[in-house]
């Protein structure tokens, strides 16, 4: 591998990463956004290498948006190191699945519902807008840190980027976030229901409990056909018709 004389500034790529899904489409998924974010890291390449590298960067790509930086940094480093185009394409393809599943587990099924559950519980306990502000602040400390780490780790490891995926902090975070999320959202559900149903008379509170139970069974039983939106619209329409008739 040829030594890289100077690391390009990662800041421009990081800023562009925040908009990596801006042109999300069913043909290349995140590909165009990935190409846009990678482009500042490729500007030091020779004329003959720059354009093919930019074109490769915009090919099909899909992963968790917060971890895409890992692939971008690694691909850019590989381009600077003179790796073969086939090898870079294969590395990108190989990263899609792991980056997607790791990000989904850490963020969509861990960090986000954990903090959302804590915020819901705090609002129900009287935390008000401060709880919501704290949610935004703490969430984004983790969000920005993860994006920055991913980009740096990708650039550092290049084609050996799979090493970064086994970082002990990621493994430990994955193990801790699952139980913490389950506990926090478990506590938030009854507290939120209580907050919303407190102004109701006793019969309406029982009606909430029974209706929610029936809806829950339906969602578990026919989750392939029914989702929260359809269910909400369906029973709201039913309640509206009954409410209009029951004067």
């Amino acid at each position, binding site marked *: 591998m040829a030594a890289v004389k100077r690391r390009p500034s990662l800041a421009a790529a990081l800023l562009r990463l*925040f*908009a990596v899904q*801006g*042109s*999300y*489409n*069913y043909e*290349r998924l995140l590909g*165009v956004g990935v*190409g*846009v974010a990678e482009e500042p890291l490729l500007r030091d390449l020779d004329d003959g290498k*720059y354009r093919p590298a*930019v*074109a490769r960067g*915009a090919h099909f790509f899909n992963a968790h*948006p917060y971890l895409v930086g890992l692939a971008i940094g690694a691909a850019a480093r590989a381009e600077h190191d003179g790796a073969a185009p086939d090898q870079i394409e294969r590395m990108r393809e190989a990263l899609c699945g792991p980056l*997607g599943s790791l990000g989904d587990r850490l963020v969509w099924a861990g960090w*986000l*519902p954990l903090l*959302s559950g804590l915020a819901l519980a705090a*609002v*129900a306990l009287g935390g*008000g*807008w401060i709880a*919501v502000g704290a*949610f*935004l602040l703490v*969430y984004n400390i983790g969000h920005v840190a993860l994006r920055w780490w991913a980009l740096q780790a990708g650039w550092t490891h290049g084609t050996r980027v799979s090493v970064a995926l086994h970082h002990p902090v990621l493994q430990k975070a994955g193990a801790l976030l699952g*139980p913490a999320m389950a*506990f926090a959202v*478990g506590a938030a559900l*009854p*507290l*939120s*229901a209580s907050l*919303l149903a407190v102004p*109701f*008379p006793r019969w309406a509170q029982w*009606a*909430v409990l029974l209706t*929610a*139970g*029936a*809806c*829950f069974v*339906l969602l*578990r039983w026919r*989750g392939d056909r029914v*989702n*929260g*939106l359809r*269910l*909400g*619209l369906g*029973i*709201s329409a039913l*309640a*509206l018709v009954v*409410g*209009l008739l029951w004067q």
Partner: protein
Amino acid sequence: MNLPIELLIALLVWGTLVGVDLVSLPQMMIARPLVAGTVAGAILGDIPTGLKLGVVFELLQYDILPVGAVRYPEYGPATVAAVATAHASAGVLGLGLGALVGLVTGLFGGVTINVLRRVNSRIVHAAAARLESGDPAALVRVHVGGLLRDALRAALVTIVGLVLAWLARPLLAGALSPRGALLLAVAAVAAAVAAGSAGTLRLVGRGPNLAWFAAGLGGGVAAAIWLR
């Protein structure tokens, strides 16, 4: 809903920002209903209503795991419209009507996301030769075009939501008895709690985390009873 024009513009701007945050830029979670609702409430000078509708749609949001190219409703601008509706109608009537307007807006928002992705696909397909040439200007143009289209889409969803909010009170509020209004609120809260519970259980699975979920649920029930 008769709001001064400056408040309507502020809600439109906020709904657009929230809609863009969901997927495009910067995914900092202002699109979460709890945040979208609280700020919409603050714009209207009615944070408690914003928080309540935010809680309803935050629970509904648990039903969604945005993995891959999955299709889902859009609850951010929907929550803004729901808060605008609820602000105009006090108490349980506001909760029920707000949730109904928000659900319809969320459905519409989800459809527009799918349409936008199809439009983006056609544009990317048409630009394939320029993208394959490695022209950075063409790449940025295609990408920024996608961002701008998403901003227009989010603004359209918010406008539709605010129009529904404006129509809801004259069309429905007068026709509903207090019992009817209560039924609508019961339906909204029940659907939210059920969707939140079912969605969380899907995340938790049947492994060891289920015990943590049960412990949290028990603690939450105890706290809710104690607070009463």
